[in-house]
């Protein structure tokens, strides 16, 4: 009985979440903040991974990242909605809806064409955002400070509270996604990745799989964008720029599509490399980031997730 409990996904996740929440009390504030940002980026990466499981990679997740961020920001500034959890949730739903609307346009395409068209969508959004002066144009705008159930935490704890909220919401989303990946439709998505023709001849629709996965990816990206905006307190059209989208693809390729926690680890790694190289090599941080990308693609082609999987598989066997 107890053995079963330890191997239960829900139990493991809750254990990990509580551990991270406790750790958040011990680590310095900046790291809490960096982890929160990594979670935001990781959510978008998780979306791309969901797509990757169905054989697609989007090079334009800045599109949904931006929509999520602006949704949260505009609800905050225009509608006075400041509850972080509500903002995250609404952004998730709204961006998911947008994703559902444009998914049929994109779902007909595969490989590089899918990637490029999604990138084009993100650029169109960028073009629109820099044009709308009412929401700050290229400068973006500042978000109001968030509240939680009507309470505004004091500034020393604001970061930590958001961190806790991010961990809990992301934790449960990750669990749901894991269930989805292991469910029959999740498995069919993997099959689409391997051989779309066969899936069609088995009577399932690769198109529907792409639409569903893109919608999920959009929702996750939107939530990531909202979390990023809330954490930083500022959003601008840079959210949707192609360089931002490039980082998301990097996170998901570094993580691989096998493991959910690996995505967040990859996002954290990218955040740390970026911020430390920016801090210690302000003149050449792009060079370092670029080399880091190339080397990790060369040496970990199937992603950190594959290490995770091997590691746990071996543990299981050795038992």
């Amino acid at each position, binding site marked *: 009985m107890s053995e079963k409990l330890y191997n239960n996904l829900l139990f493991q996740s809750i254990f990990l979440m509580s551990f991270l929440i406790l*750790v958040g009390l011990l*680590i310095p504030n900046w790291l809490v903040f960096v982890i929160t940002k990594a979670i935001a980026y990781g959510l978008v990466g998780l979306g791309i991974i969901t797509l990757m499981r169905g054989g697609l990679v989007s090079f334009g997740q800045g599109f949904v990242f931006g929509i999520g961020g602006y949704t949260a920001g505009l609800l905050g500034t225009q509608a006075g909605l400041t509850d972080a959890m509500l903002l995250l949730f609404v952004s998730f739903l709204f961006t998911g809806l947008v994703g559902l609307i444009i998914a049929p346009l994109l779902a007909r395409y595969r490989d590089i064409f899918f990637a490029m068209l999604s990138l084009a969508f993100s650029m169109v959004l960028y073009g629109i955002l820099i044009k709308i002066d009412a929401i700050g144009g290229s400068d*973006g705008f500042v978000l109001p400070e968030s509240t939680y159930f009507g309470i505004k935490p004091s500034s020393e704890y*604001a970061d930590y509270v958001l961190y806790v909220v991010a961990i809990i919401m992301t934790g449960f989303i990750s669990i749901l996604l894991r269930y989805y990946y292991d469910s029959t439709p999740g498995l069919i998505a993997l099959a689409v990745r391997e051989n779309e023709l066969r899936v069609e001849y088995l009577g399932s629709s690769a198109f529907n799989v792409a639409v569903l996965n893109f919608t999920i990816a959009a929702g996750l990206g939107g939530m990531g964008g909202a979390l*990023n905006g809330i954490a930083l307190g500022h959003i601008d059209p*840079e959210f949707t720029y192609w360089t931002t989208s490039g980082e998301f693809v990097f996170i998901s390729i570094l993580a691989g599509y096998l493991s959910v926690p690996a995505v967040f680890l990859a996002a954290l790694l990218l955040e740390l490399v970026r*911020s430390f190289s920016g*801090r210690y090599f302000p003149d050449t941080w792009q060079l370092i980031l670029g080399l880091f990308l190339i080397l990790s693609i060369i040496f970990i082609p199937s992603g950190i997730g594959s290490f995770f999987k091997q590691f746990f598989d071996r543990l299981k066997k050795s038992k």
Partner: protein
Amino acid sequence: MNFFRQCLILISSILISLLTFVGISNADGHKGFKLGVVTFLSGPAAEPFGVPAWNGGKLFIKLLNEGKVPAPYNKKGFGGMKITAIPIDESGGATKQVQEFRNLVQRDKVDAVLGYVSSGDCMAIPSVADELKALTVLYDCGTPRVFEDASYKYVFRTAAHAAMDNIAIAKYLIEKGHDISSIAGINQNYAWGKDSWKDFSVSVKKLSPSSEIKNELFPKIFSGQYGTEISALMNSKAKVVHSSLWGGDLQSFILQAKPRGLFKRTQVVFSAGDHVMPGLGNKYPEGVILGARGQYGMMAPDTELNKWFYKSYMDEYGVFPAQPPYRMVQGLMGLKMAIEKAMEKNGGKKPNKDEIAAAFKGLEFDSPGGLVQMKLGDGHQAIQPHAIGTTVKDKDGNITVTDIVRYKASCVNPPNGIKAVDWINAGFPGADC
């Protein structure tokens, strides 16, 4: 027990990596004064702005630490404390800068942050600065909205905002008898460009109500190609073309417009036109009216402090200092004065940020560009005297600035409590010229 073992490994690896990072970030000790300096070190704004500004700042900090700066800045460092500067790249957009700012404050635990060229960054940073209670000095950016739309406790701007640049140019055009019956503008499509054009066009309309706006172009920042815009400006046949372009954009615009005769046919005015002169040299067109966003570089006042700074910079880098180094040094001077004033009050201890902020409020200090007064935004926003001139070729064929008209700070800056736009619209009430 396999899950426990997994957890143990995971936990210990996370802990080890965390400790490593915490160790790195706390490695350097904390004795002198730690200053985060944020300026463009990459991207198109680096060469014309970020790098010369930081060159000036680096030199000045070095001389301060050595105690080689003339009075009243002759105390070593900041009130005897050695200054350690941490330069950070400003490129990547406002959102990235908010994060870098948090890193500086929370991870590097800097005592103050000096920075920001981009108006977008200046709009984004202050609210975070107040939230984190981090002393922040904005040294360059121009948008008037920072202290007009909100007020902040820990944020100061040691340079005048952009309204002054455009008001002074409008006044100059009229005083020198230029034809301003029609105007056109080419400004970048973001806060700086839009505000600059609005301030200029409204000022001209106020001073000469009959003048007509022909053409308002707002190309994207860093677009680099202006062929079509130049045609449109020349087709409009406006008498005056105004531009607040800066950096690489301004350089490219000049290079592309000059052979097409724009500068011969129209009176062109650059509200921030001097900082590309060291780079362009004699490719800079003649007869252009320009401001330097203060009395800087070729339009600097003839004071001891300026002569000292001009010479030190020239000796070190081999080019004359344009506005960016002046403005960064101005920020450092303001910060130094505020710190030393706070130390006088608290008996020479290292002051905390509340003490420095209190001392900074309403501060007045001399800079190479003239007297800086923290008068607007309830003592958080500086005003300073201004100068406008016209380019001309001297007898050796070198481009220099002539016909310089100097404006008192109170002549081209609104009084405390009035928004720049409102002040212009009202016809500059209370201007003391």
